[in-house]
């Protein structure tokens, strides 16, 4: 589903964010991407969205090499990938419901479908009371949940979440993780970048660990750190 083939990403001339990364994620997999701050997790996510280009190597999404996708077809790629951004990236001039609805609007879905689907999804992330609030009126954790809702409202084939529980209390975190697992169970490929050690250890999923831009570990049913 997603394949990194010897990918190196440099910012400027000498900041190495990723170095010779090889990674293959199969359809329907649930993968944790762990690593210290600055290890390159967000860079990897941005490469998959073709927000930035790799310096060397090739990235494939659904067997298409990203560098061969023309600019005008990038939106099509992104509609297939739901993404929860580390900094949420909500539209400040839209309410929670409108932000979620926007992800359906860009795919040209009917007004009626949007009106019925959005409240259901917001209810699922526990925000049915917050539908008409603007992002500035929401707490960090609430904004994060709007971002989660927006990422999977249009049922993408791939869901990427960059620190989806970073601002949440343990209880809500568990709720979000359960949601991600449920989404995974209906066949969606899920990639979660996180620092949340307890969560990773509890879920026993595949874990890919990054260190200074290199993949240092890749274990099925892994844990956050090497088992002692």
């Amino acid at each position: 589903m997603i394949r990194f083939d010897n990918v190196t990403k440099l910012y400027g001339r000498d900041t190495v964010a990723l170095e010779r990364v090889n990674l293959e994620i199969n359809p329907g997999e649930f993968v944790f991407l762990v690593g210290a701050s600055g290890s390159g997790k967000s860079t990897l996510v941005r490469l998959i969205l073709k927000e930035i280009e790799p310096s060397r190597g090739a990235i494939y999404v659904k067997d298409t090499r990203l560098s061969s996708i023309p600019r005008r077809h990038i939106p099509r790629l992104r509609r297939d990938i739901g993404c929860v951004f580390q900094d949420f990236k909500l539209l400040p001039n839209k309410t929670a419901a409108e932000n979620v609805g926007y992800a359906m609007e860009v795919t040209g879905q009917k007004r009626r479908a949007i009106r019925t689907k959005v409240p259901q999804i917001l209810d699922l992330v526990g925000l049915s009371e917050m539908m008409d609030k603007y992002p500035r009126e929401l707490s960090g954790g609430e904004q994060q949940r709007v971002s989660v809702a927006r990422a999977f409202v249009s049922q993408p084939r791939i869901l990427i979440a960059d620190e989806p529980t970073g601002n949440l209390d343990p209880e809500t975190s568990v709720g979000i993780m359960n949601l991600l697992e449920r989404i995974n169970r209906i066949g969606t490929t899920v990639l979660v970048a996180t620092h949340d050690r307890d969560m990773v250890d509890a879920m026993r999923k595949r874990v890919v660990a990054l260190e200074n831009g290199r993949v240092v570990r890749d274990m099925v049913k892994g844990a956050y750190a090497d088992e002692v």
Partner: protein
Amino acid sequence: MRFNPGFFLKEALKNIRLNLLMSVTAVTTTFVCILVLGTAILVSGHIEGIIGSVRQDVSVEAFFAPDATQERIDEARREVEGYPEVSEVTYISQAQALADFKDTFRDNPEIYQDLGSDVLPASLAIQIEDPSDAEAVAGKLKSAGFSEENLSYPQQTIERLNSVTSYMIWGLRAATALFLISSILLISMTIRLSIFARRQEIEVMKLVGASDGFVRTPFVFEGLLQGLVGATFAALLVVWFNYLFVDWAGTALPFWPISSSAVNAFFVVVVLVAVGAVIGVLGSFLSVTRFLRV
């Protein structure tokens, strides 16, 4: 992608409301620029009108010999009326010439007391469409049998007037063009500034899968609305100014050839509103495009 003008228009109106300060700035800038541009068009229209009517007064006079027969006169008149450069020909008979002369010197009757009715020659007063044709017309009159001394045409005056007025007209047009260019720059700068403030929003829209057109359309609608509103108010104000000015000139400057026909109010409104709308649309379109490369 479906095209739903209602959706985009609603988005645009909402954005205007939420970015009210920026919208007001854009509308005000458009208003002021179009007002200045409109005033320039107005001033140049009236000055061209005045110049036009001064030029129209240029005429050539052809005098007939005292012994010219009526046949000769009629023939000459018909011929001159056929010249394409000529707009109007008036025949002034000997009697008419004397009457005009008497009228001019009515306060000094002793000047014309002893004049016989056949002393002043009959003539043709020939109005010329374009003053630069005066010499050509004089040439034709010569080959039609009028001698140089029987022709009166203020050749030098015409030439000078002609070059001065065409410089003036070109100067006015250049000034108007300059106002137009500065309006375009100023308005599009304002639009670019307001869109620059929202570049992150544009980036987010692109990252959640919106196509360029989907992101751009509400911004273009916004630019169109701002341009239309600013330009319409300015255009109406310009036309109102024009009305007041023509009205005032009618009583204050009665001998100036100022008329409301020098400026076509409808044309001015259409041009100004179109300029505002086009700058609004193009300005937003180009500014958004700069931030779509995400």
